């Protein structure tokens, strides 16, 4: 059968070419799940610690943000800080990706943006936005911590 490259390859479910729209679609779910569990738990821990006492807040602060040099666990805390930074960058990227992808979903919900080229461009733009926004966010707060 003659193949027209301008047409999508589906509906043969096992014959398809991986495209940015598929990546963005599954990333929306993956980043949403990461934010819901990781982001939700860290956020609740942060607020609850703040409402309990300065000591409870400092446990959060020293293990996540910045190690306490006077602590017996200072070296372990420094390791935890590095891990927290990696998780933090991952969660901020997830946040910006989920946000951009969510805005794209608002557009798609109106019935617009399904043309092959527009759809592809929109999905690539969400990826470009999330990467740039993550770098900018950490550039702004990097000076503080």
């Amino acid at each position, binding site marked *: 059968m003659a193949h027209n490259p301008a047409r999508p390859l589906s509906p043969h479910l096992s014959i398809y070419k991986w495209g940015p729209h598929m990546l963005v679609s599954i990333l929306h779910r993956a980043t949403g799940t990461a934010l*819901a569990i990781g982001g*939700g738990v860290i956020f*609740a821990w942060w607020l*609850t610690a*703040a*409402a309990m006492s300065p000591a409870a807040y400092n446990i959060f602060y020293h293990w996540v943000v910045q190690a306490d040099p006077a602590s017996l666990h200072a070296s372990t805390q420094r390791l935890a800080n590095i891990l927290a930074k990696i998780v933090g960058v991952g969660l901020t990227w997830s*946040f910006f990706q989920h946000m951009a992808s969510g805005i794209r979903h608002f557009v798609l919900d109106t019935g617009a943006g399904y043309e092959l080229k527009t759809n592809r461009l929109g999905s690539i733009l969400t990826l470009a936005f999330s990467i740039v926004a993550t770098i900018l966010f950490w550039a702004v707060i990097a000076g503080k*911590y």
Partner: protein
Amino acid sequence: MGTGTSLGRVRGLGSAHSGSHHWWLQRVTAASNLVLLIWFVVSIARLPVLDHQAVVLWLKSPLAAVPLLLLVISVFWHLRLGLQVFIEDYVHEEGGKIALLLLLNAYAIGAATLCVFSILKIAFGGVPA
């Protein structure tokens, strides 16, 4: 639920027994998340430090506490709806699905209530800065 007519079937909402309400609330909370989370990210980035005193003093203002309360409700509602769909899509065994949905509700309601209580306690001066 349906009366057998096509209108009745639409009102009966098919095998899911619910219509577009879940989908719609996901969009409504997505829109409020967008506004409130941009406010939150900018506010956190603008705080000179992130120690206990800075956070407590910040949350004593109604203009910080109230948006943060709204954010907690919007975000935890949105994540409850989102993870519900995730569980329904991937967990096909009925018992496991119900157990996970109960766990999800416990997490979403529990964590959100913890956050709401914490914000109110700080805002009403229950935590010395």
